[in-house]
Structure formats: structure tokens, C-alpha cells
């Protein structure tokens, strides 16, 4: 089977979706002629023409606002925000418009659009190229929020997102674009070409929204993670020698409660890991859910490992990033509790 990087898989997903449905259009800053600063849309304009893939002015609110109008017309826009850190100008259009259009119009108008954006740190991007704002979307009724962790899922989830009839926020952990990154920044990164999850089938397939995947089976403790943190958690478990079950949530909302609860009820312990700042991060929701649903099975406090409650620093990247050492310590603490 062909191996692809995550960038290639994402591009492939758009390509497939655009081929199957004339109504799929792609635009964003530097997305057209140039193919995107991360090259995710490279070649799409050439292939589909500039009515289907084109450059947008530097206006995130304009991009999403126009997409809402296009979606109401009947298109399926899949737009790119250059970095998640730049989505705030579009936040009003996402929250007040896309998310509520179906509801407030009683289904007369809908907003089947996808907003793609690279998230997360690990590239010395500092405050404005490192953020993980997923919790700002999971709090909003009407949105779905997706975070793939590998090329196979990225393609399947993105096609599913484009085909979904509701607005989907698609967060792409940029540290994973070229290979699975386990937080060991001092070691060379394995390219996707040498990783089984780099195997990406040609053509159309979907990974359903709302279904988690168990990446590592175990019985000692459940680790809930998504994006880059899936690999960090796997590495941490292996290195700490802990029998952890690592769950890759893939979709944050709607979340896969069944898989989560089954695992925690089995293990009796739970560690939640994300890059975003701790307070009011999505980890809080997961912690609350686990506690509400598994209370009588819990043998230790549900523990969160997350970005510190500071802006994302530049030089202190690896002090900030919740790497395998920190996750490993949490795993051990939970096992000993």
C-alpha cells in the first residue's frame, strides 16, 4: 500500500473529495497557486482550477464568513486557517454563525464546512505558531472537533468531515506532518514512510467521526490522548514499563464515551494528556466524564498532564511541552496511588 506523510494524506483527502463532489471547494491564505505554507493543498488548483481551489485575502473572518455563505448556497467549503493561532478572528463566524445556523433556521440553512488548521507545538513556533485551541471548539454546541494522529486517520477523517453535513473543526498536529513524534526532540524523527500508519489507501474511504481507537492495549491504566500526545503517551508507557492502554480519541466532540468508559472500568486508572493549557482544557471535560461514568471503578485520581497555564514560550519549548518524561511520571504516580 502507498505510504504517505500526513501532509500528503490530507492533500489526498481533499483531492478525493473534490473529485467525487463538484461542490467541494478549498481556499485559504496561500492555499491556491502556492499550495499552502505546509503544502497541504499543493496541486489542487492546477488540477481543479481556480474556481475550486484559490487564494484568499488575509482575513480569517472573511474566509470562514464566506465559507458559511457558500455552504448555505450548497457548496462544501473546506478552508484552511494558516495556523490555529490565527483562528480567533474567525471565531465569531464559527461560533455564532456556522455552529448555530442549522438550529436557528430549523434546518432551512446548514453549514457543511470544514475548517482545517495546523495545531500544537514542538517546532519552536512560539506563541503564535504552537497553540492547541481545541477546548474553545468543544465547548460550542453545533460543532464537531476532530484531531487525527496519523496519515491513515487524517485522510479518512478529513473525507468524513467534508462529507459531514455539519461544521467540523479539523485540527492537524503540525508536529506530526512528517512523522510520528513521541516527544524525544533530541532523537531523529521516524518518517511516516517507515510507519504502518503511514499506509494510506488510494481513493475514497472514511474514518467515522465520533469513534476513538485503542492504540496500545493494556490493563493498568487508561491514557486518553489525541494528536501528537498519542505517540508521547505510547513512548512514556513503554519507557516507564507501564501496562497502559492508550486511547486515541480522534474525535473530541462527539466523543466516544463507550470506548473511554469500557477502558477505564477495566483499568481503574486514567491519565489524560494534551498539549493545550491545563485549566479548562479538553482534559477537564474528559476528567469530569470519566469521573462521572467510572466513579466506582476508579482506584486513583484521574490525572491530567497538559501544557502549563502560560502562553506558549519560544525558547522553553521543551520545558513547556508535555513530553514522555512528564507523562511517565504521571503514569507512575497513578499506578502507585
Amino acid at each position, binding site marked *: 500500500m502507498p505510504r504517505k506523510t500526513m501532509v500528503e494524506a490530507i492533500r489526498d483527502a481533499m483531492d478525493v473529495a473534490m473529485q467525487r463532489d463538484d461542490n467541494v471547494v478549498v481556499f485559504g491564505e496561500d492555499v491556491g497557486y502556492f499550495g499552502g505554507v505546509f503544502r497541504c493543498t499543493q496541486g489542487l488548483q492546477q488540477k481543479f482550477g481556480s474556481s475550486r481551489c484559490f487564494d484568499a485575502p488575509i482575513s480569517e*473572518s472573511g474566509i470562514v464568513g464566506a465559507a458559511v455563505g457558500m455552504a448555505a448556497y450548497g457548496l462544501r467549503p473546506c478552508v484552511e486557517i494558516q495556523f490555529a493561532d490565527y483562528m480567533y478572528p474567525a471565531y465569531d463566524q464559527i461560533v455564532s454563525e456556522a455552529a448555530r445556523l442549522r438550529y436557528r433556521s*430549523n434546518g432551512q440553512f446548514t453549514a457543511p464546512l470544514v475548517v482545517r488548521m495546523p495545531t500544537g507545538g514542538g517546532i519552536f513556533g512560539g506563541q503564535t505558531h504552537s497553540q492547541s485551541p481545541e477546548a474553545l471548539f468543544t465547548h460550542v454546541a453545533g460543532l464537531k472537533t476532530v484531531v487525527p494522529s496519523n496519515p491513515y486517520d487524517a485522510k479518512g477523517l478529513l473525507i468524513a468531515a467534508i462529507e459531514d*453535513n455539519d461544521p467540523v473543526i479539523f485540527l492537524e498536529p503540525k508536529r506530526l506532518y512528517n512523522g510520528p513524534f513521541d516527544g524525544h526532540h533530541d532523537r531523529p524523527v521516524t518518517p511516516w514512510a517507515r510507519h504502518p500508519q503511514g499506509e494510506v489507501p488510494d481513493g475514497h474511504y472514511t474514518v467515522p467521526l465520533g469513534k476513538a481507537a485503542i492504540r496500545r492495549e493494556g490493563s493498568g491504566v487508561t491514557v486518553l490522548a489525541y494528536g501528537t500526545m498519542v505517540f508521547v503517551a505510547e513512548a512514556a508507557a513503554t519507557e516507564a514499563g507501564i501496562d497502559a492502554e492508550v486511547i486515541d480519541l480522534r474525535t473530541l466532540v462527539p466523543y466516544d464515551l463507550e470506548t473511554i468508559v469500557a477502558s477505564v472500568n477495566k483499568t481503574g486508572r486514567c491519565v489524560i494528556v494534551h498539549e493545550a493549557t491545563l485549566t479548562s482544557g479538553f482534559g477537564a471535560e474528559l476528567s469530569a466524564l470519566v469521573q462521572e461514568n467510572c466513579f466506582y471503578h476508579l482506584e486513583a485520581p484521574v490525572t491530567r498532564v497538559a501544557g502549563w497555564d502560560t502562553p506558549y514560550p519560544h525558547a522553553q519549548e521543551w520545558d513547556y511541552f508535555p513530553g514522555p518524561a512528564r507523562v511517565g511520571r504521571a503514569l507512575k504516580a497513578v499506578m502507585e496511588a
Partner: protein
Amino acid sequence: MSQSMSEPGPLSFHVPAPAVRPGGTPDFSDVKISRAGEVRRPDVDVAPEEIRDLAFQIIRVLDRNSEAVGPWAGLLSDQELLDGLRHMMTLRAFDARMQMAQRQGKTSFYMQHLGEEAVSCAFRKALEPGDMNFPTYRQAGLLIAGDYPMLDMMNQIYSNELDPMKGRQLPVMYSSREHGFFSISGNLATQYIQAVGWAMASAMKRDTRIAAGWIGDGSTAESDFHAALVFASTYKAPVVLNIVNNQWAISTFQGIARGGAGTFAARGLGFGIPALRVDGNDYLAVHAVARWAVERARRNLGPTVVEYVTYRVGAHSSSDDPSAYRPKTESDAWPLGDPVLRLKNHLIHRGVWSEDRHKQAEAEVMAAVIAAQKEAETHGTLHTGPHPSARDMFEGVYEQMPPHLRRQRQQGGV
């Protein structure tokens, strides 16, 4: 460095204020008003640079003698004008009744159009089926003039069992895809750029339908106004960008939003978008200018900005009392008159209408509104009678209800 500069004194802070406040005598003598028939009518494919001056004039058709004059006159038949009059009268009667219903506690909130009826009623008649408006809460004339059933509007206003929005949306925040009326948001300006997006989509699909965005004078200050102009100008989107300048936001006069600019229409000039201003209380002028702008869009010539100069005679909404911030008599002093009266007089002048027929029409229109209202009230009002269910509240957040919402609905016992 500063050798050539004289020593300037301290700076001072400037906050624009209206010339007259409550207690004062309204004075609109500084409002520059073009004479009816005076402003030229360029071809629709005119180069934007050649009509920059139009952003500073006011296109008017009806003169003081109720005659239709000048190059923008002559587009509408007697019957079309009579229809227009009826639409405006209906909207006015509708507003009066619903305003009262709000005071009687039958709904939570109402927003009326008093004095601005011509803008949405006349614009609607310049569109073709399939075109899409992205309106604010003050364009119900688009629905009335498009024969959307008053009953449906009332059902929504009452949030009753037949509310087409199932009780989820505020009163007056209508939506009708079929009638080319996009769901009103309630957040100002957001829909202006959506109109542009819709129009872009139509062009991308090589369709023939066009879009119209709507915004108030105060709301032009919002950021999405800019996004709309940027996208419309970059992609030459087939959209009419309407600015309804009714002189007031809530308590702030247009100077707070307009600042040092000559006019709101002039905002279009910085984008190379043709910009016209029109007497918003002149049904014929509004319609003629709307036609011009719609034709530009339809012929793929791109966007047009249109500023409707009008006056908000009533309160901003049922929660507002304008006597706190402007003279009570200000609306009487407004130099562009009343749109209903002006069209009525024109029709009389044309010989197809009379005071008697007008009085009779008023009674008929009011009777129709009251009949619809009675009918609507049999289906409930906000606090009494049948109403949308708690189940309706949980539906429609997504196409399919996700598990967590299903659990919540169960928890809610419905």
C-alpha cells in the same frame, strides 16, 4: 529633527455628537440633499472611477409635487406601484399590531420598520426568484413584498406551536430559504460577508442567481463589513451590498460610525466598488437603484454598494426609548418625508389612487393583519397556549443527534 515644526500645544480628544439632543430643536438643514431627478444614471458597466461623485449625492425620483422625474424614473407600472404601496402599508400595520402584542406580553421582543418601509419593500421587487438576501432584523419588507405569509411571521413572533423556527430563534429573526431570505443571525454584520460568500458560490457554479447583503449604518463599524468589501472586491462577487442609513444605531447617531467620512457609501470607493446613495424614503428611487445594482451583479460586473438614506422613526426595538437620546420631534423634521405618504401622493398625482381608496386600503390591510393575528393566536403566544416542545430544543443542533445530547435529552425527561 523638529527645526521646522512650531511647538504644537497639547492634543485634545474628539467625540462626535449630534447637533441636537432631547430638549433641543431638530435641525437637518446641514444634510445635503440632491434635487429629485438631478443625479445622473450611468450605464451599469461604467468604470467605478467615473462615478465616485455618486457616493456623495442622493438619487431621488419623487419631487415635491409628487412627480417622478429624472433618469431614474419610469421603471414601474401603475400596478407595480400600487402593489408597492400595499406592501408598505401592510408592513406598517403589521408592525403596529406586533408592537402592541409585545406590550401585551404576547412576545418577548419586537423591532419595527416605521419610516423605512420603502427600502426593503422596493428592493425586493428588483430581485428574481432564487436570489438570496442576507437581511438584518429591519428588512421584513423583503418577506411581505415577496408574499411570505404574515401568519408564519406571527407564529414565529409568538413562538407558538406553528413557529417555523420551533421556538429556537428570537421573534423577528425570520428565515425562509424559499423566499430568498437567509436566516437572520442577531449578531450584527456577520451576514454581510456571508452574502458575499453566497454570491461567490453562485459565480463558482456558473449560476445566474445573485445575493444581497444588508447592514445598518451603525453596524458598518463591525469588522465583518470590511471582510465583505475585501472579498467582494477581490472576487468581483455578484452581490449588492446594502447599507441602510437610518441615522441612528441604538442611542448613537450615525456620526459615531461614520466618523470623518463624507458618507457611508464612500466606504466602497476605497475598494474600487461603485457606490450609490439613494433616497430611502422614495419607493421609486430605491427600486430604480436596486435594479441598477442587481443588474450589475447579474451581468457579472461585480458588487455595488448602495446606501439608503432614511430615518428610523420608531424606537430601536421594544426595549428602547429614543426620547432619552434624541428630540421627540426629530422624525417630523426629517427632510425626506414618509415613504408611504410620498408614494400615496405620487399615485394620486398619477391619477390611479385617491384619499378615499387609501383610507379603504388602510382598513383592508389592517383587517388582514388582524385576521392573521387572530389565527396565529389560536396556536399560542409566548406564555400561553401551545408552544414548541423541549424536544424541539434538543433537535437540530446537528443533523443527527450525537450520543451526549441524547443522554441530556433523557436527563431532561423528554
